[in-house]
């Protein structure tokens, strides 16, 4: 399929080239050594059904233009909403003025790692644009899922929601690169609540993905009908479950839970801007400092993690990043050792790391691109180890499915996660759910306790729509692939005991 035909015609009808030409010509005339123009149109919609009734509707569009320059070695940025050539040129003036303010307080000139010139179009894989589905069809499917759960014994309340995004992005720079891209993504979720014994809940484990409405309507990529049918039973068992016994515990963690641990303890920790201190006052730094590149033992020898911007249906997949670096795949942890960071063009040059691996992203035309996460994934085993095989190796432990609460410190050491379902394992078999459990560990101890990973059959592509970073804050979508994996002797907390006095 020719990607150009699948771009959003409302976006490509805008005078993209003439706006870019006006801004770039002005920036060049003012002496900018680099200038780039991004024009973006992002449509975002949310529907929330509570107990089968539509409670929240949003349907918003962001459309604007941002101009970024390097002028006398300093960054300047300006953004606006008026899409005329005069206004675009005026943004170049503003960006250069901002660079002049900035230069006085900057201690070294900005230089970008070289990148070939790219011209082209790219569109993510989707069949049905969720915004082109009729409202009655959309609400009809969400109501159907809600009704199945609501009919279950012991279900007091049901919340069904869906978030939909249609993102179009144009990029042009002084070097001659010029690209148009479109990405569609969607995140449905279903949660049941029981209030018979305090508050208990059970949510579907499906991830947000770069797919269209077919994900929700046709079970394309996730079997929603099968999962929601099981939610009432899982919830009822959770309500009646005994409280977990705290202490060091062997864990088999499903990809529906492990992805978030990878996200927090590996993906964030290997962002080079964090490692260098650029995020020190906000998102934080990293224990994985750059002097440890090539030597830090991150985990056991079976730990292999890559970053990529190419995985089909991956939320961070693109044709080119927001500095027009072509999408790539690169190693982050190989055989348990830290071997790579996520880069943008400025840091790649500064650290002498060669070409950028393409991790620049801005969440709107009004924000500057930051170094953001690619899809960061843990490799499965080459053999066909199953979840049951992993559980079979545990005498006394827990099997964890679904993410829930998460928190990690500013150097990405100490974390605490809960989950949707904690299953007790006795003598290699699941016996039933327990409740009130959280697991808490330090990153390298955790990955250093990973004894086995499951095969390709256990692997799932999970992810999040709303990873936060930067000041002003920006939100980014990202996917994480993971197999199931076995960890030995991880500290499990009883959250009821933690809250007691």
């Amino acid at each position, binding site marked *: 399929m020719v990607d150009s035909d699948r771009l959003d015609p409302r976006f490509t009808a805008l005078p993209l080239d003439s706006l870019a030409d006006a801004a770039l010509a002005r920036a060049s005339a003012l002496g900018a050594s680099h200038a780039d123009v991004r024009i973006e149109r992002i449509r975002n919609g949310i529907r929330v059904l509570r107990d089968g009734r539509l409670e929240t509707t949003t349907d918003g569009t962001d459309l604007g233009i941002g101009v970024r320059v390097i002028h006398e070695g300093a960054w300047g940025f300006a953004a606006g909403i008026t899409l005329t050539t005069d206004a675009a040129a005026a943004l170049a003036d503003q960006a250069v003025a901002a660079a002049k303010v900035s230069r006085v307080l900057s201690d070294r000139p900005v230089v970008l790692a070289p990148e070939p010139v790219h011209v082209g179009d790219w569109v993510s894989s989707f069949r049905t644009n969720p915004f082109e589905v009729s409202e009655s069809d959309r609400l009809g499917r969400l109501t159907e899922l809600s009704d199945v759960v609501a009919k279950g014994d012991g279900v007091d309340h049901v919340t069904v929601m869906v978030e939909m995004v249609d993102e179009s992005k144009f990029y042009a720079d002084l070097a001659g690169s010029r690209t148009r891209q479109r990405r569609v993504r969607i995140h449905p979720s279903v949660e049941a609540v029981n209030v018979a014994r305090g508050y208990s809940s059970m949510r579907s484990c499906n991830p947000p993905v770069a797919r269209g409405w077919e994900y929700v309507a046709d079970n394309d990529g996730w079997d929603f009908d099968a999962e929601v049918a099981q939610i009432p039973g899982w919830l009822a068992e959770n309500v009646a479950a005994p409280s977990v016994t705290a202490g060091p515990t062997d864990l088999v963690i499903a990809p529906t839970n492990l992805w978030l641990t990878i996200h927090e303890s590996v993906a964030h920790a290997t962002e080079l801007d964090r490692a260098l201190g650029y995020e020190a006052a906000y998102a934080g730094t990293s224990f994985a400092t750059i002097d440890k590149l090539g030597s830090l033992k991150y985990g056991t020898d079976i730990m292999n993690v890559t970053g990529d911007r190419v995985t089909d249906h991956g939320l961070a997949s693109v044709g080119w990043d927001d500095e027009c670096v072509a999408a790539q795949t690169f190693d982050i942890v190989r055989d348990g050792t830290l071997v790579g960071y996520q880069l943008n063009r400025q840091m790649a040059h500064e650290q002498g790391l060669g070409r950028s691996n393409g991790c620049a992203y801005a969440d709107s035309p*009004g924000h500057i691109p930051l170094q953001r996460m690619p899809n960061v994934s843990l490799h499965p085993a080459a053999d066909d180890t199953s979840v049951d095989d992993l559980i079979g190796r545990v005498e006394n432990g827990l099997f964890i499915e679904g993410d829930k609460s998460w928190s990690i*410190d500013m150097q990405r050491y100490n974390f*605490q996660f809960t989950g949707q379902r904690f299953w007790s394992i006795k003598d290699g078999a699941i016996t039933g759910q327990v409740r009130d459990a959280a697991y808490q560990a330090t990153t390298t101890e955790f990955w250093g306790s990973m004894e086995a990973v499951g095969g390709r059959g256990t692997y799932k592509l999970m992810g999040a729509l709303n990873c936060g970073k930067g000041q002003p804050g920006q939100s980014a979508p990202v996917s994480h692939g993971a197999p199931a994996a076995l960890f030995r002797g991880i500290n499990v907390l009883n959250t009821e005991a933690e809250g007691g006095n």
Partner: protein
Amino acid sequence: MTEVTTWIDQALAAASSDECIIIVNDTTEANLRWAVNSLTTNGQMHHRTATVIAIRREADAAHAGMVSGPVAAASDLLALVEQAGAAAQDAPASDDASPLPDPIVDPDYETDADATSIEVFGPLAQALGRAFADAREKGHELFGFAEHHSTTVWLATSTGARRRTVQPMGRIELNAKHADRIGSAWVGAATVDFVDVDGDALYAEVSERLRWCETRIELPAGRYETILPPSAVADLMIYAYWTMNGRDAEEGRNVYAGKERGTTRVGETLSSLPLRVTSGPGAGGLPGSPFVVAPASEAGMQSVFDNGAPVAQVDWMSDGVLRQLVYPRSGARASGTDFAYPTQNLVVDAESATSMADMVAGTKRGLLLTTLWYIREVDTESLLVTGLTRDGVYLVEDGQVVGMVNNFRFNESPIDLLKRATEASTAVPNLCREWNDWFTYTVTPALRIPDFNMSTVSKAY
């Protein structure tokens, strides 16, 4: 007439739905960010977005369609009105339907947007230049962020409301670190206009706190007598405030639920301190919208049908007793209680004359925190949250700060902390840390907790 209000009138005239609400937000913003004694990014942005809510009334039911988008010209707003009208045709009946509020016309409605620009940081940038030079000389590193927004909101309805408010947002965070990035100190402030931000004074304060980090002490996990400073109290109480959903409480879905379904804990004493928790326009001298601005309905929290309704100051707690939960007008009618809207400001006051310095001086042995970070809910029923201490845990002995301590992960419920707090300081304006992207204006006291639960040690600094 202004350009925007002319567009609004044209759009309302073109609306074919039974009722129409138009909200226009015009925001200019500027920011500076710095790291390792050098400016890293800056920007100046302007955006103007509108939300149009079209309402179709049919017998007792109301069907609402909402659409938002950028507005650079009159035609953009007209297009949104048309799309919202079409959405209202497809929308099911709203659960939260109400008649629109009695229309109010603000005298300043026909006034242009207020604006800010990067020049607002002029004096601060000079102070930062001095601070960067001094820090370089001392071998310290400075990090931080300053941001100023000016948002003008126009809200107009087909029933005659013409409302306008200007909501400023300003914040600055300054973080100083030793070269090894173990010693780390933080100060932050909220401001309306940056006129009151003294960059030299903030640098002096953060430098003093960094000096406290020259002596380093390792302590294990456990329960410690702990002084939570105003910023940390603000982060915990904002979370408790965001959770004050009356409908959720009646359905047994939050910490404010009563023992019986359909009841709440309103009337229950939550703190032995005479705490008063208030929000609303002017509370504590803080900005806060004088009317409801709700671009979307959120179950139990806000309703699009309340747009433009006057917002009063609300005492959520007084004398340590829970008095009120959040209800949109429709929810308040259904539950036989008062309409109560949560504005973006919060005042927690125990009417104490004691300063935080007095509380430190009166401490035999305890911890003094700076900020809390990565706060996430662990248990809905108790509002148990986990999180980290950040940028300054100080050991106090015999009334003096004797050095810095490693960071901890905590597990605590803000509601339980209110019950256990034994002393409060005077409430002071501050900047919270975890939530300051969303919530800037708080006036809160420091609280003394005799047995704060530090669950594990965090090796992070």
